[in-house]
């Protein structure tokens, strides 16, 4: 019974809409409901002694929001900031966070058939945060549980994590 419940949950989860974005040559998908808005990159206020991928904090209409460069977090080869650099503002359960990505592709609904379980692989991404893979013709989407990824210890966003 529990097994059935789980598969149903998964089907339900898989039918969600995803926002897809690119980091280097990889394509990622995150739950669209976690996305608050997408905006251009403005240099944030640097925070001393923070990890390099935390670019600092910026002013989102009066709210102080930290900004994480996922390209640095995932060791992408280049991370330039120009007028086309994009920030996805996430509204997570406990905080608002901005993430810097190379580009935002589109919003798509992934049919359940196209959902594949991710094999055990050695990756820099928190294994827990990878929900699965989405195959769309010749494209492969890495489906992320962005909430888990951002709450991870290595993200150093929460106060209990050590510096």
């Amino acid at each position, binding site marked *: 019974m529990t097994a059935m419940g789980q598969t149903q949950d998964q089907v339900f989860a898989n039918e969600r809409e995803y926002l897809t974005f690119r980091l280097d040559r990889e394509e990622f998908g995150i739950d669209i409901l976690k996305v608050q808005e997408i905006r251009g990159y403005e240099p944030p206020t640097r925070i001393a002694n923070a990890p390099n991928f935390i670019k600092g904090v910026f002013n989102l209409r009066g709210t102080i929001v930290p900004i994480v460069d996922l390209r640095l977090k995932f060791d992408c080869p280049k991370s330039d900031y120009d007028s086309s650099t994009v920030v996805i503002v996430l509204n997570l359960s406990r905080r*608002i966070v901005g993430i810097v990505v190379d580009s935002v592709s589109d919003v798509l609904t992934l049919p359940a058939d196209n959902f594949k379980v991710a094999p055990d692989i050695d990756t820099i991404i928190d294994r827990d945060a990878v929900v699965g893979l989405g195959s769309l013709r010749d494209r492969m989407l890495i489906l992320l549980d962005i909430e888990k990824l951002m709450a991870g210890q290595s993200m150093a966003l929460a106060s209990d994590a050590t*510096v």
Partner: protein
Amino acid sequence: MSDAQQHGGGAEGDFDLTQFYQIFFEEAAENLDLMEQMLLSLHLETADDEELNGIFRCAHSVKGGAATFGFTDVAGLTHQMESLLDRLRRHEIQPNLAMVDVLLQSADVSRSLLARHQAGGIGEPPSTEALVQRISELALGEGQSVAPIVAPSAAFESTVQPQLQPVAAEGERTLEIMVGPLKDMAHAEAIRELFRDIPGLGTIKALACDQADMRKFSVVSSTSTDELLDLFEFHVSRSQVAIQDVTKNLTVVQPALAVRADAVEAFRATQALPGTMAQDDPPPGTPLAPSPGFGFFDGAPGAPTNPSAYVPPAVEKVATQVKPVEKSNAPLAQVEAATIRVSISKVDQLINLVGELVITQAMLAQNSRALESGQFQKLMAGLADLDRNTRDLQESVMSIRMIPMSVVFSRFPRMLRDLAFKLGKKVDFVTMGESTELDKGLVEKITDPLTHLVRNSCDHGVEMPEERIRAGKPETGTITLSAAHQGGSIVIEVRDDGRGMSREKILKKARERGLDVSDQMPDAEVWQLIFAPGFSTAEVVTDVSGRGVGMDVVKRNITALNGTVEIDSAEGYGMRVSVRLPLTLAIMDGMSVGVGKEVYMLPLSSVIESFQVKADAINTVGHGAQLVKVRDEYMPVVELERVFQIPRTDRDRPSDIMVVIEAEGSRVALLVDDLLGQQQVVVKNLESNYRKIPNVSGATILGDGKVALILDTGALVRRSRH
């Protein structure tokens, strides 16, 4: 019998009232507060119609609301208060201290009853019976001198009654009530419950009734017909109720004897005959013997009782006869509400939006500078207007969060009055600077510590009247509470002219508790000892204060608000506690400093001075700790560049500005590049979306929309100590 309807408690009970509960609770609280204030300032001998009417209106509004929402216990109690106040405002009886006291207590009980309803009716409701009884005793006033009941209602009919009701509202009446036709008999049952729930309303008995959709009751009550109808209206409409007064023709009623017995019984209860009054009777020898119900006052020796307020019953009666006041003519001037209620989150949202507007405006102003001013004259003028308007707007919006200290101060007169009675002391309470404004968030947090300080002053500070006379001081002690702005902070002082603190006793107690003290300690340090946990110098532990929990909590709470506490005392002459607080937690006067390309904000209140230094003025000690000589003092230097690892592009231009800051009693000199300016900044929380950053207390948004971190001066000072 449908449960749902019974629960709804009304013939038209389908309408959901719960959405209005919050408004009612707020209004009721406001009315009770207002009533308390008016009661406290009431001049007993010269009470005018306006004052009495005002108090009456408050009780009436609370009753009306409570009745509408079905809080019968509150409605019942306030109804009794209203009856007493009604007689007062019609000058049928004279106000006296006992009445004021009972009304104050009733207001308190109403508050707790309301609080219980607000919390969803959890817990035991406070009992109102004793109060209701006392109120009705007082309301009956002159009835005390009349010989015990033979004809209960007749005793009161002699007073002037301008109303059209057949019998005086105050007298017991026997009524026959027909209810119906009703679809649901539960409503008729609910009326019986009313009599059970509202103490003092009277007694009800079901009578035989031959119609199935009707109910017949026999009621013995002193409540007027109109008021009964009002109460019944919660359950059945007026047209469905017929009330017939059968007091005078008792023979008509079948169970006449039983009713008669009930009437006597009920009357005995409300009249509180001498036999049942034993516990409330004044002690023998008290000159006020003919006024039962004042007894509980006399227990407090030295209480500022006012003998002239106790008008002999005979005089009262004369007064009532010459002054018939028609109820309908009573001035019903509605006090216009000068305030509106808005949730604080809306205000905060407004503050945020205005902040955004200011930033946008600054951006526009900056971008327009490049334009040819001759060509865009109108645009420029418009931008200048926008600039002025946004600034005014920001100022006004910021001031919404500020509320006057009188909100806090106003709760103390009542508290001190009760406390002084309890302790048998005489205390005058003086307040100053009540209009001083403080952020709402701070006001809420400062109330408890201040309450504690004021109670302490009354309990430990001010001596008993005899002791004061022996010491050559006026019999009545004075407690002064004052508030004033001083620079960027507000200073609140609690001062008393009591016995002050004894240096020796504190030192002795400190030694007993194993604290490290010496006789040579300066006074200021000795006084600070009382903030140690578990420290109390009270010789007796009373239930007021002195259990040793308190001053340390006071200190901790105030420190948590970035405030400080200072004590000054002279034995035999009194003591003064000064609490210094920032004006608001949300807005701060800041000084922006530049290091490299970054901007940091310093709380202006902690900035002492700033000056330019030459590189050779900085000395090092041991392993690199730097000191700078400021006049005659060597001060540790904190290099912001190093603390915040600020990248530097122009290597050849070292920091050469020192900003001296003070926090937690010590000073350090911060080394920065530039002083950029002073401005009011809105303090933002970093932790809501990010985390605590070392040496940073918060963040703010600058005019250009960028975020600047606010330095935690306390942390920087602590850092320099290690």
